[in-house]
């Protein structure tokens, strides 16, 4: 008995999707070659990094160029504007990014610092938005990760994080990135207690020499743990004054987040919006 037209169609699609699996995996492998330290890759770089044959890499890279996901400049491939466009639609932190970005622009102008929005991702902070100030750009990258323990953003989040998140983030091999990195458990826990009391976290060259940063938690969207920061060269860096501005800005964002949380996400009753006290500073936790 012959197969029905539908069955034949399903079979054809199945075979197609089998090859589809490897096609998409190879495309993913090629896209994964690019990072902040290596924004441009020659064909040779891509072959070395993927271990794929030159003809395959060339064919895929050219196809990705046609689609706008890669761009070719001279002899180098780089991530294209098409991928920037699609990536921006990532819904997970979309609302948070939209809501916070105008505040980051304003904070950048008033503090004369670069400003950043980050969330806790496991033991790291992930930078979602970075606003440069003039020609100063912090050493961090949008979409990039840093260990939470050595950044102001990470410490601001961890100070108010649920115990499970905190313990996970502290249970990492800590690296002395600079002479000022807090690597001992005791010092780090004292620091987090200080942050709970003051509502702001300060990074005094703990991750990069010559760079200081002040951060405050903003709660976030649902389960998200997020913070904003102002970051600049250590000289001149008026930490107390910048801390006040960051604290005020974070309180304003928290207020907006709470006010616009609406039906889409769970409300968080123990999360006050008015005063900028240290208690109100707590980001909503998983239990909210």
């Amino acid at each position, binding site marked *: 008995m012959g197969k029905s037209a539908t069955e034949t169609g399903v079979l054809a699609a199945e075979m197609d999707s089998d090859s589809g699996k490897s096609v998409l995996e190879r495309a993913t492998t090629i896209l994964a070659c690019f990072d902040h330290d290596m*924004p441009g890759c020659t064909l040779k770089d891509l072959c070395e990094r993927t271990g794929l044959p030159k003809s395959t890499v060339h064919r895929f890279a050219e196809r990705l160029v046609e689609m706008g996901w890669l761009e070719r400049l001279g002899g180098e491939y780089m991530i294209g*504007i098409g991928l920037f466009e699609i*990536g921006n639609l990532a819904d997970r932190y979309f609302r948070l990014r939209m809501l916070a970005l105008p505040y980051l622009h304003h904070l950048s*102008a008033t503090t004369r610092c670069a400003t950043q929005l980050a969330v806790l991702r496991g033991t790291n902070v992930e930078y979602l938005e970075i606003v440069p100030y003039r*020609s100063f750009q912090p050493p961090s990258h949008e979409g990039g990760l840093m260990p939470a323990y050595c950044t102001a953003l990470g410490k601001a989040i961890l100070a108010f994080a649920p115990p499970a998140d905190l313990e996970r983030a502290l249970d990492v091999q800590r690296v002395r990135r600079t002479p000022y990195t807090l690597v001992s458990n005791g010092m780090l826990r004292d620091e987090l207690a200080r942050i709970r009391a003051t509502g702001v976290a300060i990074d005094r060259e703990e991750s990069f020499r010559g760079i200081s940063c002040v951060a405050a938690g903003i709660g976030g969207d649902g389960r998200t743990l997020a913070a904003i920061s102002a970051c600049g060269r250590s000289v001149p860096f008026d930490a107390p004054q910048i801390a006040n501005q960051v604290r005020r800005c974070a309180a304003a964002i928290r207020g907006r987040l709470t006010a616009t949380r609406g039906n889409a996400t769970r409300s968080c009753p123990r999360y006050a919006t008015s005063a900028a006290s240290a208690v109100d500073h707590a980001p909503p936790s998983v239990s909210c």
Partner: protein
Amino acid sequence: MDIDVDLTSDRTVLSRAAKILEAFSGSRRVLSLNALTERSNLPKSTTHRLAGRLVSLGWLERQPDGYRIGMSLFEAGRLAERRIRLRESVFPSLQDLAMKTQLATSVAVLSNDEIVVLDHLSASRFRLPIYNGARLPATCTALGKALLARGPADALDRVLDNPLPRRTDGSIVDPVVLANQLVTIQETGVAVANEEAFAGISCVAAPLCVDGGLVAAISISGPGQRIDSSATVTALLGAVRAICADYGTPRAMVADR
């Protein structure tokens, strides 16, 4: 590893994946399987299987009510080198302009005959109803008209050969009117759009040309029927000159100003 994969098969799979990803938009960031099928114009079974693959690769994320673009695409997209380079050259001037005019400023590039906004900011309470990465029709925006006026001729031909999109009552839908405006923009270096993309928002823009090549356009936007006062235009052109003078200079060599 099969190195002799049929070229059409690569194309088919990648273009289908692209159709799925391109089904998402700023206002439709989570799509049910049905919506994804409809918007990607693929058979439902294909959409279902391909979406599953994309989930396992991190390109999509599964949600209780459908699918959304995954964080790994956000992360990859933020590596877009042209935006990073433009940011270094353009952002300080956008900040200055926004402060000086107390209006919103933006930078955009052409992409498939439309514009993609790479950055926008405001120094006042005025906010543009867009997000970074937003795509808009070139012909409804001052940024787009500035880019078309100085951009590749074939892009302009394609745009003029197709019906011009209408977003507001002010959108230009007559190709003759648009062509005349583009001639003026080529002469003056300034494009104007009065409530042509959003009712109540007007804009002036200028192309950024470096060594004769178009790299982007920058704009000033504000509330009202028009904002192209001579002071605003002068500020815009001043920013264009400042950007072009420093363009491509490694950042370390540009002193903080």
